[in-house]
């Protein structure tokens, strides 16, 4: 049972990565190319030589990008199936498809959108080499705090549901999440390393492209996994006889 859910989660992650690649190719790569030409013009003006290339741009924007997306998709596909297994039957009387869609919505918000609001993604040429350590630490810390707050909000919602009803309990949980995350946003240090002469349009489009890519990943996880999980769970229900074979 869990084995087949996990395998399906990872396969759905793979499918999500393929779709995300299409979005990344059409929306993301043009902006990355513009940012790199800005970077090169700046390096040339500063008298710096051309950076030695480890991989050509062609490799980076095809094999490299698809590999990164597949690894990301499979990793989150697996984790998604686990979150789904915990959520199913525990967050309300929802079937597998609704549960998967809700878990994807919450996952997208917790893993990506909330950290994005504090530390938005940056194209090449934005961000100083010297601060990569602290920026990475802050970004991962933000994801962790966002996930932790989400877990607490879900717990609170489940606790309140019998007393307040599902709708009001959900509102209370979301409200608590917003309050805690606002405090986290205020406390965490800000980062602004955008060069003064960097195109605002390129930055905006790059960040929108990133949002679109991540949306594609999570929407695919939620919708496709839900359909597959329904078949797995219904199979289990049908086979639930005294002699059911363990998976």
């Amino acid at each position, binding site marked *: 049972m869990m084995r087949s859910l996990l395998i399906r989660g990872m396969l759905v992650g793979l499918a999500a990565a393929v779709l995300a690649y299409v979005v990344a190719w059409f929306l993301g790569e043009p902006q990355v190319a513009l940012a790199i030409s800005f970077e090169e013009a700046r390096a040339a003006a500063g008298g710096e030589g051309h950076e030695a290339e480890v991989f050509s741009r062609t490799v980076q924007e095809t094999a490299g990008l698809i590999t990164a997306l597949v690894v990301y998709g499979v990793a989150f596909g697996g984790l998604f199936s686990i979150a789904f297994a915990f959520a199913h039957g525990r967050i309300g009387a929802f079937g597998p498809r609704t549960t998967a869609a809700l878990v994807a919505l919450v996952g997208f918000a917790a893993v990506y959108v909330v950290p994005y609001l504090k530390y938005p993604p940056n194209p*090449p040429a934005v961000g100083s080499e010297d601060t*990569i350590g602290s920026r990475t630490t802050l970004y991962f810390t933000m994801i962790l705090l966002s996930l932790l707050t989400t877990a607490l909000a879900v717990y609170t919602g489940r606790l309140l549901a019998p007393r307040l009803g599902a709708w009001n309990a959900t509102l209370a949980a979301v409200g608590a999440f917003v309050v805690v995350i606002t405090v986290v946003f205020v406390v965490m240090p800000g980062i602004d390393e955008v060069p003064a002469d960097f195109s605002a349009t390129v930055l905006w489009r790059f960040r929108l492209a990133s949002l679109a890519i991540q949306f594609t990943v999570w929407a695919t996880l939620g919708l496709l996994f839900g359909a597959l999980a329904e078949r797995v769970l219904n199979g289990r229900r049908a086979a639930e006889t005294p002699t059911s074979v363990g998976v």
Partner: protein
Amino acid sequence: MANVAVPSRQPVPLRIPVREIVPWAIFAAALGLVLLYFVGAEQGATSIISGHAVHEFVHDGRHLLGFPCH
């Protein structure tokens, strides 16, 4: 009054026992963390493998997925 057979509410969705999930959760978390580390951070903030090959290879994905890259 006729005894009408009222269908019970929606069937209660199946709950997978936590005991059954936990071992798989540990496996998925361990695998996921290693995979995400290589896409999101290796040869940026920290390096296990020397050089820049991993960083350069996943460069575009790292930027577009939202991780700090360089």
